[in-house]
């Protein structure tokens, strides 16, 4: 395991909600993938059954925040300003993956796009784009 992988794993382990969902991180080079192993408590629609849309959204938001923490080397977690989620397919009761792309990172605000998928990377089940506050007013340090 690389030092970076350790850092990401440790950062995620400090977030109680990531533990609640059961999310873990896989880092290859500078490419971060969040993995959400399937668990019964993630279900939103027991009939199909399908993952709760909020959970898929939460996974993608965590992917954005963690990616920013990796690329920005920031010790503090970025804060969400806004997120917009498109649901493309219902989430099956299997493992789900999410990968974020930082489109633009300014001095204070970052624009990030995320996709979530299950079996095939080319068939995303949801997409998110959002803005995140990466630094407080006077973080010249």
């Amino acid at each position: 395991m690389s030092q970076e992988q350790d850092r990401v794993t440790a950062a995620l382990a400090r977030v109680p909600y990531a533990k609640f969902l059961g999310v873990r991180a896989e880092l290859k080079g500078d490419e971060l993938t969040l993995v959400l192993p399937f668990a019964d408590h993630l279900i939103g629609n027991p009939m199909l059954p399908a993952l709760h849309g909020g959970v898929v959204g939460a996974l993608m938001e965590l992917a954005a925040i963690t990616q920013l923490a990796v690329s920005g080397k920031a010790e503090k977690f970025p804060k969400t300003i806004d997120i917009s989620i498109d649901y493309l397919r219902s989430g099956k009761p299997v493992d789900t993956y999410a990968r974020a792309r930082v489109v633009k990172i300014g001095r204070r605000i970052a624009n990030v796009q995320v996709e979530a998928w299950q079996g095939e990377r080319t068939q995303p089940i949801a997409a998110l784009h959002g803005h995140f506050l990466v630094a407080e007013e006077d973080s010249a340090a």
Partner: protein
Amino acid sequence: MTSPPPDQHDAILERVRMMMQFTPQGRALGAELVRVGPSRAWGKAPYREELVGDPETGVIAGGVLTTFLDQICGVAVILSMQDPRPIATLDLRIDYMRAAAPGRDILAEAHCYKIGQTIAFVRATAYEDTPEDPIAHAVAAFMVHSGAVRKFGANLRERKS
């Protein structure tokens, strides 16, 4: 649009409450329905340590709000239908005005302000005390399914598309 007379309010509330309890993730979050009205729903997501997103501040994770707001918006859509039909979230946008206060339960109010044959439009606000001091605003569109509905266990079979 359904306008429940006062004597029906409790019965409707109970029925929709059971629906929320039926959702494993809703149960896991401890989210509950507090009140219902014509095309409107009020809910509560209790503060819990295990739902914290920022260990330094103790602020609840954004993902909790996403799930809670998605769910409460869905309830508002159900409440605006004469004959409840299955729905699915098409898109959801959330704007954060500020961080939620650590240690406080989060309340939310959702209003389905337009429902058509295919799509329902909803907005919602999350707050601790009053909607005038919001934590976040949400806007969502839901697909409203017609007669042909995906069958029980549809997601357990191979996906074609």
